[in-house]
């Protein structure tokens, strides 16, 4: 059971959890996102696909509150993100598990410390932190390098630590920006299965990817972006037909 449950129940609506209306982002007179309209419901698994530079990462950063939009509206829990005050934004981020595209591990901490950080911050007892970190490390085959520093890890291991850090606290929302990018097929499958498991337990997953295999195998919602515009938004593997 997620430790965020009490807070999440209070803060989250079951429907229209994320609502975008004519959302647009400009950067140096270049339209990065154009008139995006969509809604993501609580508990959904959404694939964001598209070529590099299509706006996937920008969309993810908007949902995280990492950047602001220029036009339109983005509501999370029925409130405009640009109207969130400092504390509300912090609370929103507390409930998100973020898988960064560039891993962003804390280099001076061991793998264990990187994964355990959020749990420590949330006030878990140490025995529970130990068991939760071990569990997720075993799931992601990180148990052998749990005491290593990030600089001694391979690209794939770094990516798996990045994923472990995002999911260890069972957050209600998991935002993963190309989580399988540096992974071989077997490890990518493990990660995908783990995200599916989290989704079954109730987490909303927003995952950007280039990998068509997972999309083919699943019946989840696919949103495709081309040059900042939404060109496809449907459930299932009809995309490949």
């Amino acid at each position: 059971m997620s430790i965020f449950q009490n807070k999440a129940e209070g803060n989250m609506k079951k429907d229209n959890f994320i609502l975008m209306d004519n959302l647009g982002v400009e950067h140096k007179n270049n339209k990065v996102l154009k008139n995006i309209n969509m809604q993501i419901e609580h508990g959904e698994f959404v694939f964001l696909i598209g070529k590099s530079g299509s706006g996937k990462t920008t969309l993810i950063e908007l949902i995280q509150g990492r950047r602001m939009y220029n036009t339109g509206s983005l509501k999370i829990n029925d409130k405009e993100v640009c109207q969130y005050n400092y504390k509300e934004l912090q609370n929103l981020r507390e409930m998100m598990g973020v898988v960064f595209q560039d891993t962003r591990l804390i280099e001076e901490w061991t793998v264990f410390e990187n994964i355990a950080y959020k749990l420590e911050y949330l006030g878990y007892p140490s025995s529970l932190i130990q068991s939760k970190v071990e569990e997720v490390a075993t799931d992601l085959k990180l148990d052998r390098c749990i005491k290593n520093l990030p600089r001694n890890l391979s690209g794939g291991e770094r990516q798996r630590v990045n994923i472990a850090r995002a999911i260890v606290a069972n957050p209600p929302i998991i935002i993963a920006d190309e989580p399988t990018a540096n992974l071989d097929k077997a490890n990518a499958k493990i990660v995908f299965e783990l995200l599916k498991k989290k989704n079954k337990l109730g987490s909303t997953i927003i995952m950007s990817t280039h990998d068509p295999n997972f999309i083919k195998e699943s019946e989840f919602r696919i949103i495709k972006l081309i040059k900042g515009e939404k060109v496809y938004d449907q459930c299932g593997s009809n995309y490949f037909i």
Partner: protein
Amino acid sequence: MINVGPTILSNLYLIRRSIRSVYKVGIRYVVSITIIGILFFECVFLQLYLQGFIQIMEQEIMSSDLKSAQLSLDGNQFLIMQISFGRDILSFLIVIISIYILFDFRNKILLFKVIDRTDVETKIYLGIQPKYILRELLLKNFFIYIIGLSLSYIICIFLNMKLVSLFNSILPYDLQEHYRNSIFFSMVFFMLILSIVLVFYTIIIEFISIQRFKRTFSLY
């Protein structure tokens, strides 16, 4: 039931992690202060030894004939020169190393210089509150100061006591008891002054750093 948000327990984790992460910068800090302490000790020692030595020579001259006094003076003149030269060099080194420490301290330890902007942003995006991150950084520095200062204080005094006995066994004349006490007390006094100066310097610059941190990361 587990609370959501920073709790007393999470603050304990913070302290534990801070203590664990200070050793790298802390060792640098301890070594620098210990070097200054030892140099200062040697400076005081040489100065007092010179005084004691001259006093002994004066007594010898008074109690002997002019010829043997002249011989003793000629024989020890080179030693006196060496001691005073050594003392001057050490004083110069103390000034240079003190300046180095202050700059090193500012560049390697002080809060705003050691903040890795990417790390702070990452932690904020992971849902950690900036005030918790700030507390984490300040605690880390706090332990560097406390552990660093206390440790270098103890090491300096211990080493200097050993050095007094060593020098006494090597040098031609024993240093008298009251000189040894003077060395010890001036040593303690010097380290105390050094600590106070560093603490004030730190408080002022950390205060400025905290304001900068708040300005930079309040928008996140």
